[in-house]
């Protein structure tokens, strides 16, 4: 039920923020770290969509990626390792009006947080999750993560990692109810921004994997891709990504892909060279958990009290009639 009068009056109240208005603390990331590009893209998104800082929430776990909420001048929650998603889901259930973003890393999400990740995809709650995938545990100074390539030598794998890397895209696309899956790279900021914008505007759980550089511990890992644009496969579509003319001249390796085509998305996700960049899958028809659970009942104090009383009454030991009739001792 919307009043026309309120509509007009709300339009009178327009706040415009500059990029600097979303800048929190000065980032402490290493120079050249891909997290900077993601931070900039998020700030641009907030500015260009006029997101009210008091209505925007960044939730993170532990890791370099999870420093991001400190650098945004919005509400933020820097949680414990692997538990960004349940916190974000709780926030969304309690305050469905907030714009919720989740920043997590490859260790935080794909290792300790894997269970939450799987079910967050299923719940399809309306939020945007950004997986800062630098293929290593960077904050704790170079340990192998689930997405570290086989053979990577680290403090915990001095002879090289034994296992093939986990592919977050194929995992996400394999879960029921996945509604938005995309991949970006931090060295193409324009595409990164477009994908994050599409992810934000999608109603549902938007999963964006950003392959990012770690200049400190894996400085040359992505050099072949940086130096050869042909090793990046850009997915384009009228309902997906569109490259600008300048960028299209550089990144000529493009493929038309319909984001609704799940089978094709899964095939593309399995390919790691060239790196596919774009929206792999988007289905706006998947219902969001908070919509399915919306009771419509107003949670007033009396309502909550009545509910609690009803529950406690189930365990209450009521005195028998005989006991009731006895005089008090």
């Amino acid at each position, binding site marked *: 039920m919307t*009043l026309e009068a*309120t509509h007009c009056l709300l339009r009178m*109240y327009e706040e415009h923020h500059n990029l600097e208005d979303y800048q929190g603390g000065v980032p402490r990331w290493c120079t050249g770290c*891909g997290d900077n590009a993601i931070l900039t893209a998020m700030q641009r998104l907030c500015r260009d969509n006029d997101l009210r800082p008091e209505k925007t929430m960044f939730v993170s776990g532990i890791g370099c990626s999870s420093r991001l909420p400190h650098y945004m001048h919005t509400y933020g929650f820097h949680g414990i390792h692997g538990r960004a998603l349940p916190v974000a889901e709780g926030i969304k259930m309690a305050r469905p009006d907030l714009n919720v973003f989740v920043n997590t890393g490859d260790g935080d999400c794909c290792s300790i947080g894997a269970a939450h990740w799987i079910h967050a995809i299923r719940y399809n709650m309306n939020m945007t999750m950004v997986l800062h995938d630098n293929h290593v545990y960077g904050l704790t100074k170079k340990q192998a993560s689930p997405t570290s390539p086989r053979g990577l030598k680290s403090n915990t794998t001095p002879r090289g990692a034994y296992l093939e890397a986990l592919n977050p895209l194929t995992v996400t696309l394999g879960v029921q109810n996945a509604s938005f899956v995309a991949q970006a790279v931090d*060295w*193409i*900021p324009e595409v990164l921004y477009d994908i994050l914008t599409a992810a934000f505007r999608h109603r549902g759980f938007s999963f964006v994997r950003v392959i990012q550089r770690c200049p400190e511990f894996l400085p040359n890992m992505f050099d072949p891709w940086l130096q050869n644009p042909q090793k990046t496969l850009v997915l384009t579509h009228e309902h997906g990504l569109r490259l*600008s*003319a300048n960028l299209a001249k550089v990144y000529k390796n493009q493929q038309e892909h319909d984001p609704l085509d799940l089978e094709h998305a899964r095939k593309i996700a399995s390919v790691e060279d060239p790196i596919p960049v774009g929206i792999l899958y988007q289905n706006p028809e998947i219902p969001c958990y908070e919509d399915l659970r919306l009771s419509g009942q*107003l949670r007033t104090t009396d309502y909550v009290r009545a509910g609690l009383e009803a529950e406690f009454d189930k365990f209450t030991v009521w005195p028998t009639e005989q006991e009731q009739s006895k005089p008090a001792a």
Partner: protein
Amino acid sequence: MHDGADGQAAIKAELQTMQMNVNADAQTVDPLIFYMTGKQPGSGRDALAGKRPALLAAYGDLTRLRYDFPLVLIEGKTNGAPIRSLSSVVDEMLQKIAPPGMESEQLRKMILRIEREIRTLAAAGESGRLSELWDKVATRLEETDEAFGKSARIARAAIEIDGVVLDCCAGMATSFIAHLWSAVQESKAQKFRATVSRLAVKLADILRTDYLRSPAGRSAENLQAAVGPAHQALFDFSAMSRLLSKSSPREALPESRRRRIESALAVLKSQRFFAAAAGQARPDRSAEPYSFGFDNCADATAAYQARLPELAELVKAMSIAELEIDGTYVEAKHDVIFSGFDAGSLSPQDTALFPDYLVTLGAGAPALDNAALMAALSSEVPLKILFNVGDLFEEARAGDGHFASGLRGAQVAGLAAGLGEVFVVQSVSSNLYRLRERILRGLSFGGPALFSVFSGVPEQESSLPLYLSAAAAMQSRAFPAFSYDPSAGSDMASRFSLENNAQQDTDWTVQPVEYADPDLQRIRQETAFTFVDFLVCDPRYHRHFVAVPRGFDIKRMIPAAQWIARSPTESSDNVPYILTAGGDNVLSRAIVDDRAIGAARRCLENWHRLQESGGVHNSHAERLLKREKQIWEDQKRQELASLKPAAAAAMPAVVAPPTTPAQPAAAEAAAEPEAKAPERSTDEAYIETERCSTCNECTQLNDRMFAYNANKQAYIADIKAGTYAQLVEAAESCQLGIIHPGKPVNKAEPGLDDLIKRAEPFL
């Protein structure tokens, strides 16, 4: 009309010999004179006494038919269907407990018998709820057969709904529309209560939070009361109060804001436009909710005007509440607006959220002033008017059998549709159930709506059941159904509908009449049901008919439908007739006079106008089509003519391939206009800014030479703020390779040869 009669009744035909009702003084009537003058000699006996149109002969006892009536006005949870027919309720129940098959055949028969008995009770005027009537019938039938009781109980348990049973009676339209109107208002009320409850709770939360943060809220006494008696001994409330008072922010709600919120809250709690939900008491018991049912437009309009200031206050309070809850109330801007907020600030969308005013104009109401009704409908008051059309036939002031320009009751809806922004439904009462979705749409429409309903020839005038005479009015085009929905689109094709009218593209509906001839052979004759046939349903107009005199040549009798189609000025020695049937199931003819034929012609013209509006035989469309067809034919003829000489001179004629319609130009993929890359010489230093990933490499090197733009992407802010060496170093450390150092600006910088060599890959 339902064609549910058990077979066709055998009707003896008087084809060769017509029985004539000889008048009292034995003078015979000359049919041609009767047709022209409408007068018959002597006392003029009613030639149609006890007769009905031949097409209605089969519908003797409606209670034996299974059709839409009676209806059940459902109470409580309606699941989107506030009214259902008894037959649909029973069908649904049978599907559950007695699906088709031999096993449940006995149960089905019993339940259908109960349904028939309920139908009979309702037709006899017995009122009551479905559950009451069901139990009554079941008890009565159980006295004769015990099995009925068991079946009735099984069926009764399967019926999940209940409500008043309503037959097609004189007051049916009023009950029908009122029930649907209540359902729509209840739906609005639920939404309104949900919104206002939410606003009130949120506003109360703001005040409560402010209180809790205030010194009074943090006092030891208040904290102790909040904890409750069970664990009070565990806490030192004074210490708690001191701690909370020190650490919490000191900002309290500004006084102006507090007053504003309290005022809005008071208005929300004391509103009278919707009743409180069942089980909830109103805060102010003395102020009862407003009533929105009236029996005349003037009172409804006056009530609306009187309540308008209160409505404006309520909308204002709701707007303020939304803004305060959202935290976007800006006193500098909004105070000015709200100080002048009054009834004139309300939009139609705002008033549509509140109850409509139901006005029921009864058939017995004082003579309706069409102008006053049109004025009420165009006044922007959210009226929903039920106009019960009492009598379709109006005699002219000249009286004595002259029909008025007439059918005035049938014109009201057409006039209202002409206003443009009024939702209009015209229908007979027997068809209301079939139009229920459209009526619901009209009752939910944001603006005024008119429902014009004819409930049949009054029972004191006619022996026909109201359902039949109402249906006959619709079948005969005397009162056709139509609807006009302004919200359905911007053109007539979207807005106007003639749905439910049988055979919309014909002048009259045509149905077969079957009878037996003197040799008992079955004859089937397609017969039109015209306005004149409908006149037979009302004995007050039987003076426009006369029986066929003995010996009159039947070849001189033309069916009335054919006669009406002729030109009025065409002279003839023939006379028009219609077919009637009496209680003895004998088919006979009756001659019609010119007055009745004239009224039928006007009825037909009215129907033609409605057809045009509904897109049937639209004269404009037909003319346009004809013109376009003519142009196309001429064009083709010319093309053929131009080809003939060439064909004759040379080879055998080759028909020129048909001109293919111009292919639509292939749509080019919309590509962004290629931004012209600025002409850059390799000597110039620049950064491909749009590809910068904000890694801080260059800005950390020299934040005066390299700066970020509004999108936090790097560009060369001041080439002179650093050295060429720094440019080259930045280019080398940029992982994306988007820094191009160009040639050195300062030729005197040391080590240039080496730097230029290092810069080459980046030029």
